[in-house]
């Protein structure tokens, strides 16, 4: 069984010109509000179509960037909680270490869960480094804040008795009492993203859904770490529904059409990392050991992916074929895309949630609708019957 979530970053692609930096420093005079409104409406139309087509929905947020206009994830969540009928609504997610008020997060999530009648999937993320110069929250101790915020939110959502007290290292409240209470009991399912084995173990210890985002075959290391942790806790094999993977998707009725769509979508990884270099690695975001490796090797290590046959490619400069070989993009006819997803899933350890960026870069509304419809009609029914069949994967260590 595999569920598939339609995802778009709601980019403001009209501002992607030349090779200018798109994050943190691009003034918003490059944003025309009327164009932004048109784009938002179109992206919501695509999510409503996903609901009609039997797909689920994924939402994210980023800040001060033309790559993603969704700066407050609760806005699309709130709109879609009311406007959609059946789709699961995955937010992946709330950048917990980047938020000063976890009580507000618990209130937002509980409200969305109630309005959607229990369709919320509650994802928490470390977030990308570029957010910290904007939020001005300290990159040092980011994950310490993340986990305290997490602990608080889980308690706030699952407490139904007397208001409780919280005086932690980072957050202080004296009368915590979330109204309305969440629809799902004790709280919506928790998802956390990771690219590291250590985090994978922490996620596994709590039995949460672990998501890896475009990390290709290196994901196998984190999947293995998750399974190892569960085995140590006495579980033979965690279900496929504990694993999620995000990839780019372009489907066409023939290969040429799919490749053309893939080219438009590949503009997303090509533009996504265009940022003034110091913002890509604020102090404390990476470990000291990782920074020593970067100082030795240069920043070229960032955004590096390894293909199935061991080739190193750059996610920001690679061709569509490179991205496909690296398990970052799934592109072709419905038959081809189905086979690519299944092969990849089997290679990294098997996932039950596929997060499909079917709109990204310069892909138009019409082409997105066609790609989504082909996927939903011809690929989705087969993925719903997916069974994990392990097969030989290349030896690529998770970083």
């Amino acid at each position, binding site marked *: 069984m595999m569920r598939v979530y339609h995802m778009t970053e709601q980019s403001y692609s009209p501002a992607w010109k030349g090779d200018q930096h798109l994050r943190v420093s691009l003034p918003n005079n490059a944003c025309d509000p009327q164009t932004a409104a048109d784009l938002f409406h179109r992206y919501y139309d695509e999510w409503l179509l996903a609901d009609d087509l039997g797909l689920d929905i994924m939402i994210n947020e980023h800040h001060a960037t033309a790559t993603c206009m969704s700066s407050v994830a609760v806005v699309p969540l709130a709109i879609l909680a009311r406007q959609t009928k059946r789709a699961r609504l995955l937010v992946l997610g709330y950048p917990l270490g980047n938020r000063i008020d976890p009580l507000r997060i618990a209130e937002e999530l509980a409200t969305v869960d109630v309005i959607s009648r229990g369709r919320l999937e509650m994802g928490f993320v470390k977030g990308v480094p570029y957010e910290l110069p904007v939020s001005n929250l300290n990159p040092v101790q980011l994950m310490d804040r993340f986990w305290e915020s997490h602990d608080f939110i889980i308690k706030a959502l699952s407490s139904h008795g007397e208001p409780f007290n919280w005086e932690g290292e980072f957050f202080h409240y004296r009368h915590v009492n979330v109204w309305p209470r969440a629809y799902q009991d004790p709280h919506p399912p928790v998802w956390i993203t990771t690219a590291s084995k250590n985090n994978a173990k922490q996620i596994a210890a709590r039995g949460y859904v672990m998501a890896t985002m475009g990390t290709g075959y290196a994901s196998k290391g984190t999947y293995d770490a998750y399974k190892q942790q569960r085995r140590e806790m006495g579980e033979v094999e965690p279900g496929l529904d504990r694993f999620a993977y995000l990839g780019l998707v372009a489907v066409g009725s023939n290969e040429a059409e799919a490749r053309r769509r893939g080219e438009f979508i590949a503009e997303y990884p090509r533009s996504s990392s265009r940022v003034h270099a110091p*913002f890509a690695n604020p102090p*404390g975001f990476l470990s*000291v050991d990782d920074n020593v490796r970067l100082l030795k090797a240069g920043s070229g290590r960032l955004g590096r992916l390894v293909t199935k046959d061991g080739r190193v490619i750059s996610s920001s400069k690679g061709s569509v074929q490179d991205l496909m070989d690296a398990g970052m993009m799934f592109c072709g006819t419905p038959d081809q895309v189905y086979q690519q997803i299944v092969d990849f899933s089997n290679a990294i350890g098997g996932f039950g949630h596929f997060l499909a960026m079917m709109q990204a870069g310069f892909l138009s509304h019409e082409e997105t609708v066609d790609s989504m419809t082909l996927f939903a009609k011809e690929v989705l029914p087969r993925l719903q019957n997916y069974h994990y069949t392990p097969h030989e994967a290349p030896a690529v260590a998770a970083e």
Partner: protein
Amino acid sequence: MEPPTASNPPIQGEAARSLSIAGLKVELIRKGVGRPILFLHPESGIDLTAPVLDLLAENAEVIVPMHPGFGSSEIPSSMSTIDDVAYFYLDFLEALDLRDVIIVGVSLGAWIAAEMAIKSTNRLSHLVLANAVGIKVGDRETRDIADIFALTEQQFSKLAFHDPATGERDLASLSDDALRNIARNREASARFGWNPYMHDPKLRGRLHRIDIPTLFLWGESDQIVKPEYGRTFCSGVPGARFELIEKAGHFPHLEQPDIFAGRVISFINESGQSQLSRRSPILSQELA
């Protein structure tokens, strides 16, 4: 609470060693003989073979610790502000039973020195604050201190040095230990200085408590914190004096080590404690 204690008191000499103060192990060296100078390094750390340390050691005993989290000094997760570091160094002086100490601090090190002196000058005799950060001077929309975390290495060198070539370094030629120090120093600087950015909003209003002779030295070409910021900082410390150092930027101890050390030594020699009352002017008035 027990008073802070030092284990393994260091033997004087040039070798780098470590010392545990109240359970926290820090790297330090002591060199020279004479009155104690506590040298508090800037956010970039300090090379323990820097000429300025030897020049100072010709006239004094120079004690150069690596701040908690910098170099190979430990840091507990509870330590997150310069205020914490200042209390640590007050414990440090007590544990080593140092008296009549001259503190020489550069940039972030000068911020630590000022935070110590507003708490207690009991064990201090003089302060030398060079290209200090630590206070808010301008209005809320003016960034007083250049955002070093938003600069490439080349951009930083251009603003920080009179001669930007002084700041050039070949990372490929450095040892793993040296690279590790660079990474740790950068992380520790952010831990203490990310937000509020490189200052303590409370510090300026407390500077009047500093009741020992204080000299501000300022590399004239500094574009990270400009001399005007330094003059304002200086005006908050009773009786303090401000001196520019030519042909130097944010790190005058590196670009003009002879002049820097010479100014420190002559300041110590010219001004005894008698020049300033040990009591703050405000308190004196109240008692009068």
